[in-house]
């Protein structure tokens, strides 16, 4: 008998007599739980539940009208992998990610170095660099889309007036020219964040390291290669991995400029998933799941890398 009583008070499920004392006890035992509970619930509702729904949908057979006709098993995945465009979409996703992240990192290294120097107007230029970051990516993409427009675009007008081309070009109409332009825009919007990350990294490198190097006779590029770069590694890695995830998942630039078209010739997996929505929601969900798995891998790399940073 006494055992059961003590059990109920232990659980704190509302045994009446000892209530006064246990009120505090339960809360104490719960520790920080009540405080983080809202956040946990929020995550459960806006993150975990959608993921569950996403995975569930990828195994459903849904008619074009949107009517759920029952389970599809793994058919939708099979269908997805058999799409003629699938291999090409994956290839371009890799090229897109590698090129955009690579170019962004290289340019940012240079820019960060530049902004780390003392020169007149540095504050103004530093502010100016924020502009592409502060503007909405979709807005930037649409802005470029119209600049590149075949009939109304300012670029065609300019090039025709200068006599570089004699007929206006449809830059975004074919993959051959659309990809480079979209990559350009992607680099353009990724530069500010990356540059600032690297700039912050540069500013944490103590000055005496350079002085010591100078005394030892290191000059110019050698200093950069052997002193700056290794010390910049933590900032570089953070910038690199965050860019990797961002660019891989990038939707607004491509959607805003070509919608992945013609067909799926300028689509990455994220855009392709959106295109599939209009033909088959189940298949689109399957693409999402594949995409999600790839992001998880990238995130795991990120965690690994950041731990590696700390250990160092």
């Amino acid at each position: 008998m006494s055992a059961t009583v003590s059990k109920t008070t232990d659980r704190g499920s509302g045994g009446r007599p000892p209530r006064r004392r246990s009120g505090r006890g339960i809360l104490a035992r719960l520790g920080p739980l009540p405080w983080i509970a809202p956040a946990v619930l929020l995550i459960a509702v806006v993150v975990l539940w959608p993921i569950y729904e996403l995975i569930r949908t990828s195994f459903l057979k849904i008619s074009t009208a949107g009517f759920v006709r029952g389970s599809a098993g793994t058919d939708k995945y099979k269908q997805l992998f058999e799409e003629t465009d699938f291999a090409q979409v994956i290839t371009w996703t890799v090229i897109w990610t590698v090129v955009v992240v690579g170019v962004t990192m290289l340019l940012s290294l240079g820019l960060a170095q530049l902004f780390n120097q003392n020169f007149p107007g540095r504050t103004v230029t530093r502010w100016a660099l924020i502009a592409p970051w502060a503007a909405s990516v979709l807005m930037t993409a649409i802005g470029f889309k119209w600049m590149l427009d075949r009939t109304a675009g300012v670029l065609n007008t300019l090039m025709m007036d200068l006599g570089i081309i004699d007929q206006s070009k449809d830059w975004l109409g074919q993959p051959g020219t659309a990809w480079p332009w979209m990559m350009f825009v992607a680099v353009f919007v990724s530069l500010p964040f990356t540059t600032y990350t690297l700039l912050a990294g540069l500013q944490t490198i103590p000055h005496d390291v350079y002085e010591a190097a100078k005394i030892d006779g290191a000059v110019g590029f050698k200093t950069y290669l052997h002193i700056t770069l290794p010390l910049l590694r933590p900032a570089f890695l953070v910038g690199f991995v965050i860019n990797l995830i961002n660019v891989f998942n990038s939707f607004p630039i491509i959607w805003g400029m070509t919608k992945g078209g013609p067909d799926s010739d300028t689509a990455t997996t994220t855009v392709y998933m959106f295109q599939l929505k209009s033909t088959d929601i189940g298949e689109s969900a399957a693409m999402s799941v594949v995409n999600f798995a790839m992001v998880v891998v990238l995130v795991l790399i990120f965690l690994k890398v950041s731990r590696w940073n700390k250990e160092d």
Partner: protein
Amino acid sequence: MNRRLIATSAVGVAMALGLTACGGESGGGDGGGDSKTVKLVAADYGDKKSNASKIYWEDVAKRFEAANKGYQVDVEVINWNDIDNKVKAMIQSGNVPDVLQTGGYADKVADDLLYKRSDVLSPATEKKLIPSFAKAGESDGTAYGIPFVSSTRLLFYNKEIFKKAGVAEAPKTWDEVKEAAQKIKDKKAADTPYGLPLGPEEAQGESMIWELGNNGGYTDESGKYTINSKANVETFSWLKDNLVKPGLTQPNPASTDRKTMFEDFAAGKLGMLNGHPTLIQMAKDGKVDYGVAPIPGKTGPLESTLGVADWMMAFKDGKAKKAAVKKFLDFAYAKENMLKFDEMYHLMPVTQEVADTMASDPKFKTLKPFTDVAGGAKFYPLGDTTWDAVSSEIKKSGGKAVVDPKQTLDDLQKKAEAAAEDQ
């Protein structure tokens, strides 16, 4: 404090769960709620604020409510780009509208979601429908779709550009199209000689017009898909070799939408293209001196051009009474309402009485060439329950047929057959 926090979050979760539960409740059942409120979802035909379809429908709703005490209409107007996805989401969550006005109906028939036409339209109203359109509303012999507006396609040409290029009259055959386009190009009479919009907006329309010119089409007599038929492959190969490659069209037809081409034509930058009545007003606004002619086919002008209709349909699982839906639809199909809508957007009527009124009114003179060919017009396989799925595949990749005809059409055929098998 703590306890309150927990309580609040508990309420939050309960609400979230409750909200999601709401979605799943309706569905099933075979007909009609008991509400006197009709929920209408309709597409937006307007291209600016002043002619948004919301204005039209709210006015109809207000007059309907005034004439029928106790009844109400909830209007939701969605733009064309979003309407398919939003309706899909409504169906998926079991939250269907009572009445829907959009581009296609047959995919909803496949899942048995719609009322038969005779259930929600009085015989008097049903009799008013022009027979060819009424017939297009049938799926497997039973009528579900109620035509709402229609259009037919003709060749638009810019008279001034033709004169400058020395083209005496509108082309009647494909070869004449090529010849005229070449002249326009040689004389630099226009930026683009021939407009070929095969982008996602309406690739299925432009493709079918060209296929009809070679006695092709999407289906054969028995209704089987024939997208990669010899005639169709031939059609696109001709287009590729004779118009696209020599640069007689705009560059990249597969990524050009009809809207862009219409704008180019209205700006006087385009020699000729296939268009529908909306272009009349656009050309007028742009002060373009245009002419219309039958669409050229391989050996002569098309006898039956492409006819397109948009549809009205009523959902069985809506919350409104069947009688309320019927009352509303009969009201919406009254002559004055239909006429007003057609006039507002330069579209063609689907009821005989409106067609007669238009024929006798000089105000609609410019529409006459289009209404004249409506009788013999050919439609998409609208009644086929897989058509909507196939149509979205064609919208997405059909334009590439002018780049790689055989491969693209084979691919589409495969998808169409898979869709047909899936039914």
